[in-house]
């Protein structure tokens, strides 16, 4: 600390760092200066004048949020003059607008109210100004009450600088000033995407969550911290509870990964928890119809049928689908149940459909199949390459990190995606590749980097192996050759290669656009190659970062809900590991050969080789590729048991349905996309007789002759610690404050936010020479268009959770076919026309949405909607290594659909 940096606040001396504001020095030293418009960590706007302080020797009072601390400055934060100024400011704020606390949702959680109380502003001498603008209630999620708005600008800052959604701004001037969206339109007609960050930062009751209105006063609500149940970002949320009902969700502000930010699903998608359609009793199907049953009856039936099938057809005739939605502890038990009780390695979960190729590809290249760097590293990157990830819609909070890095940091962004996704607006370079040609462009970039000598020679020599083979392979991928395959202009490819190679650190982010191909594992290895070539693995701000789709898909993989590994990726084919596990689990032996994957189990069910499936929290009848086939396959089972919180499309065809509990009703841990293990806390009691997933597994196990005794999820975690090296030091006590990144082998270990620092998990990083293989199906005369599938912001996966929310359904009510204006013209399609889309496997109808996100020759359909299930069209061609299906490419044709002689 510089001895020259000394400041005197309220007669006490403090030191400050150059550039620190008076407010920051005061806050750091526990001196309370009230603020209203200031958002900690962001540029001060100095709008509200509440944080005024007296600086000796200056004529005017100065806003402490915007005034840098100066050497020997003498500051008074609560002098008479200061208090008087604050008093008048508060009085003026109270006079501008209609600040009636009686029915205001902010009552009890309002900064203006607190300030009025603190400075005893009892009477307002000024006349109350009339509100110029009526309250906006036209959307289902956010109410804008302009009469309560004090124009502090926090919402504008939150929208533009934190989330970088850039939907609102200041409009008009003087007394007519108003916070406006584009064209002063209501939010639901504007660019607003309802992340609700503005609501979160509004210091008064001008912006409030509509669904929470009149549901309870701030002081009546119990606020409990837990982990968001949607995507893999793992946002920390507070659930606000009254009378066993969730009435509001807010972001936890003071910690990673989200620092208070949430997306529309996390903030508003909680209706499913207290939904009347939740399953509350076990159901048994008799004569084609469900009837309610007791737990005893249902569990006994399941145990009996699984026992019979095991006896008649052997353990490998049974399969278990575990779930990326349940906790780590429950996934651990699910795989233990499959292996120790059923005696089969046929256990898998939906990671097979999303990132199986990542786990496989990165494990071979680096030795560990997960995101190499923490989310917080994004803002350290100099260059961010995003490919095959529609980040703003699928991982909104991570996308804000990227947008901030580009808008306010030093990072440049390259987006390589077949659609002009929203993130492309922030990119220096948006490159459009033909579907399924990722290996080719990656090889092309490496060709340029090697040819121009831009690669990191020292890193390649000391940290990697296999470079010569790689060099040989990429030799033929000249920009001209790559253009022929990918359609990427040579100049763009060269530019991208130079940008990537010349930036350090440079990070790569990818998701299903890379993984869901029959060459998924190859694609992932290509990303690893590119990153290693430029020395970006194992450094802050660099890395290869797969964005995981489910809240606990990382954890489900980590805890062994995979057919080839126990927890901690300990392979089942290793006899020593098997022996150790058998000993811990107190069984004689465990199955040695790797089991079947989710995709293979469906095929084998169709062939009659899998006789029974135990499906926990998954909905393959919407999520699997080539649904018509999957439907037939599951109908072919002798016995299907589904454990879920709703009667999903898959549960409907089950023989027995077991009601389990949602994330808000259980304790445990989720592991997010950056390997951050975080706590899940029980907030409310489950509905009816619904039972904890781990308890159901234990109960079932007992009935099948194997006792699992756990008092609670904590005791399961203790067993996980013993048998899983990477989770060895992770305990609930440690997680209480903040999560831990695995590997965390011992209780003293601080966790590992960044992998492969100094040394790869496998020793040396391994380059893989990879040649381009085209997608399994490409357009032809009969099916002339490419179809690619993906997500929309407002829904999650098969919609089991999000479609219970009126607000979200209102924003994304139905399926659509995104089509370019050129294709629309060619097919004479107008916005909203009903289209029939068919592939070799099936057909669906949905309305056309003409969009400049779509590029000629390729249409896009979201896969969430069971009524128009995109997966009836998709191709089940599998990656030979990871067995992941090619969801991202198939060939289709479109025609206008006519219903009863007219267009609907």
């Amino acid at each position, binding site marked *: 600390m510089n001895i020259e940096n000394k400041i005197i606040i309220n007669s006490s001396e403090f030191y400050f760092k150059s550039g620190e504001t008076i407010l920051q020095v005061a806050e750091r030293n526990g001196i309370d200066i009230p603020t209203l418009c200031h958002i900690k960590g962001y540029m001060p706007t100095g709008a509200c004048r509440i944080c005024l302080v007296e600086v000796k020797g200056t004529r005017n009072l100065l806003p402490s949020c915007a005034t840098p601390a100066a050497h020997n400055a003498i500051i008074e934060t609560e002098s008479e003059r200061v208090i008087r100024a604050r008093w008048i400011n508060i009085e003026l704020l109270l006079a501008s607008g209609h600040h009636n606390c009686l029915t205001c949702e902010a009552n009890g959680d309002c900064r203006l109210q607190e300030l009025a109380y603190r400075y005893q502003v009892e009477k307002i001498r000024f006349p109350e100004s009339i509100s110029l603008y009526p309250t906006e209630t036209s959307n289902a999620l956010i109410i804008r009450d302009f009469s309560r708005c004090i124009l502090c600008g926090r919402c504008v800052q939150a929208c533009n600088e934190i989330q970088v959604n*850039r939907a609102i*701004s200041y*409009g*008009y001037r003087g007394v007519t000033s108003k916070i406006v*969206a584009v*064209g002063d339109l209501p939010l639901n007609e*504007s660019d607003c995407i309802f992340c609700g960050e503005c609501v979160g930062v509004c210091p008064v009751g001008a912006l409030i969550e509509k669904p929470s209105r009149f549901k309870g006063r701030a002081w009546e609500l119990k606020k409990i911290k837990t982990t968001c149940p949607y995507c893999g970002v793992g946002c920390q949320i507070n659930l606000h509870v009254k009378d066993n009902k969730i009435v509001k969700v807010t972001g936890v502000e003071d910690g990673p990964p989200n620092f208070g930010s949430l997306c529309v699903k996390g903030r508003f998608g909680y209706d499913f928890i207290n939904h009347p359609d939740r399953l509350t009793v076990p159901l048994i199907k008799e004569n084609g119809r469900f009837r309610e049953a007791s737990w005893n009856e249902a569990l006994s039936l399941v145990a009996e049928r699984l026992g019979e099938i095991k006896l008649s057809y052997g353990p490998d005739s049974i399969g278990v689908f575990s779930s990326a939605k349940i906790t780590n502890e429950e996934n651990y038990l699910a795989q233990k149940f499959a292996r120790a009780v059923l005696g089969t390695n046929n256990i898998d979960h939906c990671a097979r459909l999303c990132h199986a190729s990542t786990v496989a590809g990165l494990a071979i290249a680096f030795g560990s199949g997960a995101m190499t760097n923490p989310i917080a590293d994004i803002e350290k990157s100099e260059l961010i390459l995003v490919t095959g990830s529609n980040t703003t819609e699928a991982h909104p909070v991570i996308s804000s990190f990227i947008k901030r890095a580009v808008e306010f940091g030093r990072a440049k962004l390259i987006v390589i995606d077949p659609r002009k996704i929203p993130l492309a607006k922030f990119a220096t370079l948006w490159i459009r590749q033909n579907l399924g040609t990722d290996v080719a462009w990656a090889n092309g970039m490496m060709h340029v980097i090697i040819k121009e000598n831009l690669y990191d020679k020292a890193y390649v020599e000391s940290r990697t192996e296999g470079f010569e083979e790689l060099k040989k392979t990429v030799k033929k991928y000249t920009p001209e050759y790559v253009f022929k395959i990918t359609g990427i202009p040579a100049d763009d490819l060269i530019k991208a290669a130079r940008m990537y190679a010349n930036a350090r650190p440079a990070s790569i982010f990818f998701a299903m656009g890379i993984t869901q191909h029959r060459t998924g594992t190859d694609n992932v290895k290509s990303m690893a190659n590119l990153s290693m070539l430029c020395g970006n693995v194992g450094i802050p701000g660099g890395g290869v970062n797969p964005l995981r789709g489910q809240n606990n898909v990382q954890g489900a993989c980590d805890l062994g809900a995979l057919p080839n590994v126990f927890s901690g990726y300990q392979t089942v084919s290793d006899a020593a590991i098997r022996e150790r596990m058998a000993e811990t689990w107190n069984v004689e032996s465990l199955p040695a050969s790797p089991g079947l994957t989710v995709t293979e189990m469906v095929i084998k069910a169709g062939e009659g080789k899998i006789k029974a499936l135990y499906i926990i929290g998954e909905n393959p009848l919407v999520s699997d590729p080539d649904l018509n086939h999957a439907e037939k396959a599951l109908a072919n089972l002798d016995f299907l048991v589904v454990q879920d919180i709703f009667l999903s499309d898959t549960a409907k065809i089950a023989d027995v349905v077991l009601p389990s509990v949602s994330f808000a009703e259980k304790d445990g841990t989720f592991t997010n996309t950056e390997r951050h293990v975080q706590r899940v806390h029980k907030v409310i009691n489950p509905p009816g007789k619904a039972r904890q997933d781990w308890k159901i597994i234990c109960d079932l196990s007992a009935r099948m002759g194997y006792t699992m005794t756990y008092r609670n999820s904590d005791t399961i975690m203790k067993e996980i610690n013993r048998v899983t090296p990477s989770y060895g030091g992770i305990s609930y006590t440690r997680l209480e404050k903040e999560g831990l990144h695995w590997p965390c082998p011992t209780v003293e270990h601080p966790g590992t936010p960044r992998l492969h620092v100094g040394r790869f998990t496998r020793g040396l990083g391994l380059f893989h020479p990879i040649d381009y293989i085209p997608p399994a199906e490409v357009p032809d005369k009969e099916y002339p268009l490419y179809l690619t599938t993906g997500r929309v912001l407002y829904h999650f996966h098969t919609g089991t959770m999000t479609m219970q929310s009126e607000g979200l359904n209102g924003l994304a009510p139905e399926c659509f076919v995104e089509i370019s204006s050129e294709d629309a013209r060619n097919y004479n399609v107008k916005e909203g026309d009903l289209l029939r889309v068919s592939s070799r496997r099936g057909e669906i109808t949905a309305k056309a949405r003409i969009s400049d996100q779509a590029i000629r020759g390729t249409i896009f359909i979201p896969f969430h909607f069971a009524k128009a299930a995109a997966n009836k069209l998709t191709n089940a061609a599998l990656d030979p290594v990871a067995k992941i299906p090619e969801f991202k490419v198939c060939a289709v044709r479109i025609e206008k659909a006519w219903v009863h002689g007219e267009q609907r």
Partner: protein
Amino acid sequence: MKKITLKMWKEIDGIIQRHKEKSGALIPVLEECQSVCGYLPMEVQERISKGLNIPGSTIYGVVTFYSFFTMAPKGRHIIKICLGTACYVRGGKPNLESIQDEFGVETGGTTGDLRFSLDSVRCIGACGMAPAMVVDDDTYAQVSKQNIMKILDGYK
């Protein structure tokens, strides 16, 4: 509503292209586009938003902040009546009213046939010519009820 013609769109696109890479481009672009179209309707703002990659909300904020910018179409000719002190005492106000009466237009408004927009201004720095009137780029001295209509007859 005054239609944005194909020719205008071309000019707008040209303006955007010319300023695209410069920082602080928004205000000059808005100014030039307004001079092309006479006003800045939402469709023009949207085009600028896409072209400059500036959020529509920001553009709307700027357009509604500065009184120079307008979202209502302006007439083919802009009449400005000076109401600065010198012009005011020499009859600026009755002059203004005579135009309002003759054309049925409020100050700040535009005639139904889009022929004239009428504005009052505070001193144009031509006090020796008081009371003064400016039509488009032409300044007229010592105008009165009697000669105003004759002058305006020249602007169709």
